[in-house]
């Protein structure tokens, strides 16, 4: 059923959820987002359980944030609850760190759900057909997307090509200069490629000002609207529970201090 929902609708729902997560700074609300999104996606089979491995990098980042805040958060009237060598972990620091860490995990989870269920072609077509995205921009985006994997390989080649000319010997100070030197061939190549693609597209009859058809039609269905409504309801419900339990704390308008 997930596949039948327009990518644009999924994008909207996803952005709404992410926005909601970054709006709060208590640890409970993002936990609920995390649990609910895992439950909804894994248990309904949208995301295979083992894909959750992708949360790991977010996990490391989250743990680092937690650790830093727990030990060094700038808080008033904090009580030291534990020490490890020179590190002093405060109660408020731990809560603050936990809230941050959970927000990172929740955002990570939402990103993973979105990216692993998204088909880039459908995303672009959906933007063009449902949101009147200019085709020239959209197709350029598609073409650019194709070159992303080659960039890394090219970067490695350039680095090796420079190293064998002896550029390593200049020392660390020169790294900014070196980066600039790497960028020139990458950019030159990129621009030339973009020009060639644009010419090739025109040769195949692409002219955005003229009417064109689409093989894959992605009409906006009522189910898409309902999907967004349902997502908003779930988000609202999480907030309601959080507020009811007196957990909710807003991040941006002078939220309550823990």
């Amino acid at each position, binding site marked *: 059923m997930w596949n039948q929902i327009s990518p644009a609708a999924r994008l909207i729902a996803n952005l709404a959820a992410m926005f909601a997560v970054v709006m709060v700074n208590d640890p409970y609300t993002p936990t609920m987002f995390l649990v609910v999104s895992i439950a909804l996606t894994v248990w309904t089979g949208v995301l295979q359980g083992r894909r959750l491995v992708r949360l790991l990098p977010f996990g490391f980042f989250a743990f680092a944030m937690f650790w830093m805040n727990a030990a060094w958060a700038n808080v008033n009237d904090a009580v030291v609850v534990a020490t490890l060598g020179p590190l002093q972990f405060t109660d408020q620091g731990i809560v603050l760190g936990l809230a941050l860490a959970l927000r990172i995990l929740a955002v990570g989870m939402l990103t993973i759900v979105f990216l692993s269920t998204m088909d*880039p*072609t459908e995303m672009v077509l959906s933007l063009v057909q449902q949101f009147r995205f200019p085709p020239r921009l959209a*197709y*350029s985006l*598609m*073409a650019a*997307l*194709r070159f992303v*994997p*080659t960039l890394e390989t*090219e970067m*490695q*080649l*350039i680095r*090796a*090509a*420079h*190293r*064998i*000319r*002896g*550029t*390593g*010997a200049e020392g660390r100070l020169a790294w900014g200069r070196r980066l600039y*030197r790497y960028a*020139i*061939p990458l950019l*030159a*190549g990129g621009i030339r*490629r973009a020009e*060639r*693609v*644009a*010419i*090739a*597209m*025109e*040769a*195949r*009859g*692409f*002219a955005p000002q*003229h*009417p*064109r*058809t*689409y*093989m*894959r*039609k992605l009409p906006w269905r009522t189910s898409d609207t309902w999907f967004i409504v349902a997502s908003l309801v779930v988000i609202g419900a999480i907030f309601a529970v959080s507020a009811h339990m007196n957990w909710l704390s807003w991040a941006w308008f002078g939220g309550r201090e823990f």
Partner: protein
Amino acid sequence: MFIRTEGLTITYLDAERPVLENVDLQIAADERILLLGPSGAGKSTLLYALAGLVPRAIEARVTGQVLLDNRPVTAWTPAQVAARLGFLFQEPESQFCMLYPTDEVAFGLENLAVEPEAMPAIIADSLARVGLPARAQQMRIDRLSGGQQQRLALAAVLALNPSMLLLDEPTSLLDPAGRRLVVESVYDLVQDGRGLIVVEHLVDPWLDLLERVIVLDETGRVVLDDTPTVVFSRHRSQLQSLGVWLPDATVRPVGFIGTSPRENTHGASAQAEPIVSLRHVRAAYGDGELVLRDISLDIYPGEFWALVGANGSGKSSLAKTLIGMLTPMSGEVLLQGRPVHRLRTCELTRHIAYVFQNPEHQFVTDTVWGEIDYSLKQLGVPAEERADRVRSVLERFGLAEHAASNPFALSGGQKRRLAVAAMLQAGAPLLVLDEPTFGQDWRHAQELMQTIARLHQEGITILMLTHDMNLVDAYAEKVAVLHEGRLVYAGAVAPLWSRPADLLRWGLEWPRSGAVGLRERGETVVESD
């Protein structure tokens, strides 16, 4: 008349003189035409102009006119042009804008506003007609081989059912196996009476198709326009003086070698220490499959080796082990007896000069002068000596007049010469070249090869990765063939040509007939330039 040009003159905005001058042509829709001429003669520009891409997509001053189906080509919409002329470009991967083959073919149909319901059948038919295998049709475009990508591009233009195909050097960036794929497909497609205009430096594979040859000279004027028989037999010397590749079994295409260097080198060097020595090298990228399977190879000082094999056979990987870009899982890579992984970068440059496939990757300054100066500076040459040395190096490599130019502004051949010159300053006895002539026209390729041959005669050991068997035949003394990561042949060049079945299996091809065997018969080769 399907296409008519009248007094067509085209000048690019930054150029002083026109690239095409006063071109009058009449072309019927079912004609099969070869467009010949030296580099800079405006062959590609003419194709672009016929399709209205000049001046629509590429800015230029155009006088005179191009009529397509009795209307100025620019009066048609791009879609209307695309329905009449199918354009195939040189570089496979930069003519696509979608991720998967089906979407790519659909893209053109969508531009022509074809009914979506009709598309799947047209797409399936086009992909089948160019012979793209079913498995490849499901793959992401960037995972396809170059030959398959060109077939896909052909399918994409074929879907629009154009009357004529315009092919702009469609095989010049492909390996021999890929080239065969494309040529075969085109042969199939023109059976139904479709016309064809092809620009290609390597003429031979197309000969059987052609009915007419149009030759442009350096100034962009039409100098010959006749049947292939007339052009290639009666105007041979004119073509030769233009620097155009001749498709003839009797003409030696390349010819630097006056005295045959093949005999003397090995005997003299057998006792010497190898300059490169690979011992049971096995290598892979990450956890991937082995790309090099137990390779052992010795290269002795003064030799000229070619390293050949189909795409993905492990050529580049092997070359990468020589500069430590790829570390073997087991086995050893020795440069003059020292393991590569023990050499520091600055030592490495004294053992090996390595010219990458894209020479732009190696430029580290903003001027041609600066590139050579940089290399000398790295060596610790004092500033007052450098100026003279830079000047003489640029002189030697024919780059003196470009001293102040930006390296990125040079032509493809000049860029490679500059990269070779810059790399050699550290005094390395070994020069490794990755596809030195790839994507270059014949004349520039020749100039570069002459430079390399001269360096070889001066005692530099050469290892050249290439797809071009003509270069192997004309220049190399020894050849190493890689096939699926294994070294399947290493030795003298001539015996390789007597194994046609193996050549085919390894994804290689014969050098053009005229080139084969000349050396064995001991005939002297004359320079054709």
